[in-house]
């Protein structure tokens, strides 16, 4: 009786991409790209080496952040940031609802749909900072430009998600309301709004969070808020003040995330 029955088979893990040609092609492409990309970065190692002291000073600053010396500036910046957050979120929601309705294909006629989608695309493409540059040029320095920037940025986020939510509603309910002879507003109010409301509230709360974080950035180009204070601190190499500001930002974001998590959990 021969011993050689069947060759021992080894199990191999199935790969993520099935076609071997595509798999190797992608791998090779990625390797070539990486080589080119890394090659095109010029790093001035001397400068990096010099900067390491400063980097270390920044790390050390986190162990002894300085809240007191510039407390006046920090407080003003924080108040501006928080007021900007509140007003821009409210304005943003007010603007997002009509645009979101217009960007839902099952509600709006094609021209309105294209217009609203266009607004959303522009708002999503350009970072807050770019929009802020233009608004600062138009409305002057200060938190008003920042507030308008954040409101505009809110549209891209909220209106897009609202429109997608409306497009995926259960049409039966909307049709039922329609069948009772409801007008357009009644149709929206009773057929559609109840279906999208929980998600809209959740997204709005999330947006409060994002708007606060972004309000720390628009200050870099002069649109008010804690970002202006932070930029000044970096420019003066006052790392202890910068560390204090960053710690405050992290604390507020954590607090906001925690509370909005609680509220969202209650809504479900």
């Amino acid at each position, binding site marked *: 009786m021969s011993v050689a029955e069947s060759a021992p088979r080894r199990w191999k893990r199935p790969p993520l991409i099935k076609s071997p040609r595509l798999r190797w092609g992608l791998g090779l492409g990625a390797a070539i790209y990486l080589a080119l990309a890394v090659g095109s970065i010029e790093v001035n190692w001397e400068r990096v080496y010099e900067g390491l002291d400063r980097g270390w000073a920044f790390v050390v600053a986190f162990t002894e952040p300085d809240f007191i010396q510039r407390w006046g500036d920090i407080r003003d910046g924080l108040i501006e940031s928080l*007021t900007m957050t509140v007003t821009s979120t409210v304005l943003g929601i007010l603007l997002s609802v009509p645009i979101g309705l217009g960007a839902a294909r099952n509600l709006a006629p094609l021209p309105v749909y294209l217009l609203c989608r266009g607004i959303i695309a522009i708002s999503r493409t350009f970072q807050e900072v770019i929009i802020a540059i233009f608004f600062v040029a*138009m409305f*002057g320095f*200060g938190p*008003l430009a920042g507030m308008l920037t954040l409101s505009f940025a809110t549209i891209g986020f909220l209106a897009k998600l609202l429109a997608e939510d409306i497009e995926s509603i259960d049409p039966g309910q909307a049709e039922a309301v329609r069948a009772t002879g409801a007008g357009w507003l009644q149709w929206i109010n009773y057929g559609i709004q109840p279906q999208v409301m929980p998600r809209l509230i959740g997204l709005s709360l999330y947006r409060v969070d994002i708007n606060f974080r972004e309000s720390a950035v628009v200050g870099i180009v002069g649109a008010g808020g804690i970002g202006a204070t932070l930029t000044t601190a970096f420019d003066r190499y006052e790392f202890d003040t910068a560390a204090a500001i960053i710690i405050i930002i992290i604390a507020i974001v*954590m607090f906001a995330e925690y509370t909005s998590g609680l509220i969202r959990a209650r809504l479900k």
Partner: protein
Amino acid sequence: MPVGAQGEVKVWQRRERGRQFAIWLGWLAGTALFVYCWQLISEITMWDFVWDSPRVAADIGARMLPPKWAYIEKIWRPLWDTINIATLGTALAILLAVPVAFLAARNTTPSATLVRPVALLIIVSSRSINSLIWALLLVSILGPGVFAGVIAIGLRSIGFIAKLLYEAIEEIDDTQVEAITATGAGRGQVIAYGIVPQILPAFAGISVFRWDINIRESTVLGLVGAGGIGLQLQSSLNILAWPQVTLILIAIFATVLVSEWVSARVRHAII
């Protein structure tokens, strides 16, 4: 069902009186807060500038058109840098975020009391600070250039990728892990054969999604000196070369559209 009485007639009401009152109070407080905040902003606004804004906007608009198409020669390199910042930054973030995610997930962390809070703190700190602020910091440490941009994008993305990934790890199907454990697999083998195959699609989706976001973010890093197309934008704005600004904005728009298309295609292919 709350029912009120109007004389003899019973009237249906949506809510109990107390609850209705509480909701009304909530609206009142919210509106008051909004008005108060608006007032604070309004006080420090110079309204003369604001009333002048339509004229300024028309002026800028007139200067911006037509775009200076010849300038495109000079922005190919910055665009390439921008894409590199986003891609290499995402790659760096993935390398660092994967271990953090495994340390933060409740079912894979070595110690829920010691290691998990540290991992969560890393995630929160990275998420709270915008990449532009990271860039500001890194430019003052490493000097201006693409390198600072890559690190800034990387640091910012760790939190995002690690958060979504650890949530995916926590939602895996336990029976598969149990099955692998029952064969006598070690800790590493359980992760490699029981957990990784389950989270791989989510992981790929998250990475591509973040890459898409990073393309957008890397377009502005140049404003603080961290390389990419933002540098060109900044210098064009400084010399008030509005037709160049228009062209740069068009280039950014096109790049973002392409990256969004790529990321949608890849996510579609995975899911």
